């Protein structure tokens, strides 16, 4: 457990790791610690999907720039599918796939 130790005016003077019994026996003013920085929200399915989409686009950047890259035609189609994906009904559950 963590406790905020306070002075007589209620100002926090220290934050310590302790059991309740130790704090009660040794300090006059204290309070149980609460996290001042709440846990950030978990990403939504849409956010996770966009992150994956962005990563896929980033990973195929080089292929899109080099004319003789293997399977380049399909990669270009795949990249366009990735860009269009958020505006389709497949988003975010069904990911675009790269043709062979």
């Amino acid at each position, binding site marked *: 457990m963590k406790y905020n130790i306070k002075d007589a005016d209620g100002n926090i003077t220290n934050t310590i790791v302790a059991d309740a019994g130790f704090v009660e026996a040794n300090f006059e003013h204290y309070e149980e610690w609460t*996290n001042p920085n709440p846990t950030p929200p978990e990403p939504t399915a849409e956010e996770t999907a966009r992150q994956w989409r962005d990563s896929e686009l980033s990973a195929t950047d080089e292929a899109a720039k080099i004319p003789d890259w293997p399977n380049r035609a399909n990669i270009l189609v795949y990249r366009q599918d990735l860009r269009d994906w958020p505006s389709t009904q497949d988003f975010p559950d069904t990911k675009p796939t790269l043709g062979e």
Partner: protein
Amino acid sequence: MAIILGGGGGSTSFPTIFLHKSQTWVPPQDGNIMIHVIGAGGSGCASSGNTTLQSGAAGGYCRKNSLAVTTSGSFTVVVGAGGTGGTNGADGVVGGNTTVAGTGLSSTLTANGGGAGSSSSPNYGAGGTAANGDVNNTGGAGTDFGGGAVGITGTGNTAALGSPPDCDVIGPSSLMGYGYICGESGGQYLENETVYDDDYGVHNIDSATQGGFLAGGGSYMANGAGLEYTIYGGNGGIGGGGGQSMNKRAALYSRAGNGGNGIVIIQYLPA
């Protein structure tokens, strides 16, 4: 709670005792002891902006070289809590102070907590100071690249690009004893790091690495395209500062590393 290790070489006559939380400590045997007091680390700042933000600093290090104790003595040990990492653009939190007072000590051994990373100037977390020991070292400050480390031989290390915030004395914990303590390596700084995963292809690592014992956590800088999921600065090890996190694209998805809690280490010494 106290964790007891046999002294170097496996001796049980000269144990090393780790006190991780506040308590009244009574020596389990008569003898001479060395007391190491380490303040808690401050936490880093989290942001989405372009401002340079900083990591948390390490706690101070205070050492009493030798004190004669008996089983009739007692000590009040207060262990500082590490700061909780800033989230969603928030500043970090300072580390708590660790103190030891009791039989045979003329003044309270004090290792103050490390400062927090902040979005306002000065935005670095200043290292925790120490007082009333035979050795009083200031913790390493926080930087862009990671939290500060505890300094055993002098002021603690700070992180730089390519140089993690290691403890200044690194070694296996099995060697701790007879007045010798050591720490571990600091967390690595990351910037737009990517990895390959069979299921999801290339994607970003979402957390900088954590600091080892007495070392600082690494920072994470999502500096380019940015990320729409949470990135994490690395937590500090015991006494170490937490790494900052900066996600330039999404303020909601940035969480800095926590500072490590403080600790008191007591080692029995040969006569």
